[in-house]
């Protein structure tokens, strides 16, 4: 009996695709926000929204995949608190992958700028235009994003720590290096 210590290929593909898109959307969000109004600013806002909605769609697929597939077991060397911390962080990351784009979508509606995915698919405005709500949701979007930043640092730090310091073949789980079989 051999058991793959690796997530399934769709799970790995989704993990890296979403990571890449977030790594683009996050700095873009911070940068565009500071710009004075210009056509370029309007373009960047649209691109940010399109990337963000793409993350939402991929995250929905990813969460349903995760709920219907068992991930590979954690290495035996991991102690209880590490296991708990790991599942808590993963749970929050999934939550934020959905909550951040949704907060962005609602904020855009409240600010009176509908989201039209890639300029083609109009998303319904789920809330009425309102200055107060728009500002509130912008604050929520920002706070969720900086929570995400903190969690991603933890997440990456933990993975690297397991791999390089505890010398467990950890990064293979998400497809780095050769497929390991136990």
């Amino acid at each position, binding site marked *: 009996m051999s058991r793959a210590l690796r997530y399934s290929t769709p799970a790995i593909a989704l993990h890296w695709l979403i990571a890449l898109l977030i790594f683009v959307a996050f700095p873009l969000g911070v940068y565009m926000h500071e710009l004075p*109004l*210009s*056509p370029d600013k*309007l*373009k960047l*806002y*649209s691109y940010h929204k399109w990337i963000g909605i793409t993350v939402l769609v991929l995250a929905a697929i990813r969460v349903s995949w995760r709920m219907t597939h068992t991930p590979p077991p954690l290495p035996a060397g991991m102690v209880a608190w590490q296991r708990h911390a790991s599942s808590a962080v993963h749970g929050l990351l999934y939550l934020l992958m959905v909550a951040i784009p949704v907060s962005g979508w609602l904020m855009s509606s409240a*600010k*009176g*700028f*509908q*989201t*039209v995915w890639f*300029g083609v698919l*109009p998303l319904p405005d789920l809330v009425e235009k309102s*200055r107060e709500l728009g500002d509130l949701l912008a604050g929520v979007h920002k706070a969720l994003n900086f929570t995400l930043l903190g969690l991603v640092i933890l997440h990456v730090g933990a993975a690297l720590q397991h791999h390089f310091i505890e010398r467990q073949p950890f990064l293979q789980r998400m497809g780095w290096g050769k497929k390991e079989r136990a």
Partner: protein
Amino acid sequence: MTRHLTLFALLAALAAPAAHAVEYRTVLPKQSTIHFEFRQMGVPVKGGFKRFTTQMAFDPARPEAARARIEIDLASIDAGSPEADDESAGKLWFDRGAYPKAIFVSSQIRAVGNNRYEMHGTLTLKGRSRDMVVPVAYVPGKNAATFDGGFVLKRLDFGIGEGMWADVATVANEVKVKFRIAATGS
């Protein structure tokens, strides 16, 4: 005798509106609106003007004698967001310091049937004047009549959004304008 006089006065009062039709002259600002809509990155954005004055005279029996003059205070703009309101005041947009108002003056009003009219006139914005034809629907009402109209304005005809903003792929050239003027007879 007095009885007959009262009856006569009553009949005369009833007959009056039919004898000479109302001329609408008094505009009700609170019930009058000017809205617009344009596309930004393909997404519709709504806006409007809160302050404008309308002088008009319109007698449905004599539309050829009708006239209208609308002056819009550009500082009362809602361009979709506070940031856009500020931006719109600048030189590239309305250049509001030099041109604080948009002015429309009718030249001729033609009945086209069914309470519909074609209002010919000149719109002056940012120092540029353009002739235009605006379709208007007259809706008689109990207390006030309304005049609903709309047209599509090309912002670049008036130099609205110059320089970097002239790129119509980001902010479309077409701006849909809709207005409703409510007025009572004098």
